[in-house]
């Protein structure tokens, strides 16, 4: 069976990382920015799993790290959404441009 080489997978994960970064810097909607951060975390997950499977298959350290990242990303998203909901109550908007009370 022809295996996909590691470099292809790393290309996908790096692309995902930079797509996430681009989304975080250009999007103005807080929920979309949060989704971009999740993309970054998922690219990290792909990295860990791929490295573990291809290079260090005798130990499962990478896979375990992935499990922890998934759990923590969920916790982070929960807190972030709670904060965004509270912000929405105060500002009636989830556009980051609306949250401009403090500058310089």
């Amino acid at each position, binding site marked *: 069976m022809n295996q996909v080489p590691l470099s292809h997978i790393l290309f996908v994960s790096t692309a995902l990382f930079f797509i996430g970064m681009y989304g975080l810097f250009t999007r103005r909607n807080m929920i979309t920015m*949060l989704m971009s*951060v999740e993309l970054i975390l998922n690219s990290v997950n792909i990295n860990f799993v791929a490295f573990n499977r291809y290079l260090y298959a005798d130990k499962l*350290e990478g896979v375990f790290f992935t499990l*922890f990242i998934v759990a923590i990303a969920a916790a982070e998203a929960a807190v972030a959404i709670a*904060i965004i909901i509270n912000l929405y109550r105060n500002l009636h908007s989830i556009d980051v441009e609306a949250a401009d009370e*403090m500058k310089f």
Partner: protein
Amino acid sequence: MWADTILSLRQELLVAVIIFLLLFIKVGAAAYRTEVILHLVNLLLLVNFALGFWEYRDSILFNGMFHTNKLLVLEKNILNLGTLIISLQAYSWLKDHRQATEFYILLLSTLMGFFFMISSGNLLMFYLGLELSTIPLTALSSFDLEKRQSSEAAMKFILSSAFSSGLLLFGISLLYGATGTLSFDIIAQRLDGSAFQLFAFILILSGFAFKISAVPFHLWTADVYEGSPITVTAYLSVISKGAVFFIFIQTLYTVFKPMAGNWYRILVLLSVLTMVTGNLFALRQNKLKRLLAFSSIAQSGFILAGITGSSRAGDASVIYFILVYIFSNLGAFGVVSFISTQTGRESIDDYKGLYATNPLLSWIMALSLFSLAGIPPTAGFFGKFFLLMAGAGKGNYVFIGIAALNMVISLYYYLRVIKAIFMDSQPQPIGKLKIPLLPNIAFLVCLGGIVVMGLMGWVYDYIYSLSIGF
């Protein structure tokens, strides 16, 4: 066996016990008065502080995940002392707050996260500790639920900290790919300075730089500091920053030691940028919280200058400076916090004529600011002196000269506050305020630390005897 594990984990376990106790109090049927809960937490934190002085042997637990030795116990004790001071200062704010219990649950979770983070011997443990501290901290910064500024600060904080942990994690995953392990000791043996490892290192470094608000990554700092409740701001600026510096210097000096030539130049650049930018932005601030935010960015630059020393003195001077910084910064934040909760006034103009009505608060503020600026009789001078001496060990005197010049710039904005307090007057000065007992104790501890610490040479010697070499 079990006794050994429990004794090695005594500081973390006691913090965990306090958290669970508060949870049970919260969900239990019995209603306690807020004062009782506050006194209980303060007492238990004091017990934890005392436990830190009890020496127990060094050990490595959980397959190398968790390290403990005298230096780490001392660092945790410094953080614990800072948290205790903040908790005492927050007494008058929390006394009438409905959610004081939740405040402490979140605050102590972050403290436990920092404890695990600085004890970690493994990248997984390090990441878990970091997130255990970051996520509750973002929730804390939005603790004034009705205030727009507070929720805006929390939003900025969680998005930027999620992004920074993304960067850090990407670096960790590449490092794992390059070395095949997560353990700090084995990574150090397998680093060879190839371009791939260097890229991973730079990503990890930028993750750290976010947390310590070094300059290209400092943009969240001022807004988060201004918007958060002031107790949380004080916690962010000393405990959070101090803990990240502790683990940062450990990883640089042990894990990334093979790359010392590379990170030395990066750190010098970061340090100069951080000091200059922090100081220049602090010059034009009129709100005290923002001024202290930029001053804390500038102080990070000085700490980075100490780290570049890459010697035993570098480690010792950073730990000593953070100890001094806790006293001086919490002194200043304590005064601002106290006046802000009592009167709601926070700008420098509001402080005009403070000396006439509140001489004690004025002197605490003045001494803290002198210590932050590094004026000789105070401890801050010795802290900065040791940092710059450690930095000068590498022989890069231009860099140390720039750092020394920055101390002069910083004098301007610190003295501006002192001038407003002592020399200026205004039609409606802040009225005479009565300081309750617990904040008073906290102020006296800070004052004692600032005045006496510099004169007690054995403190630095003791830290030096424990520090890690290079």
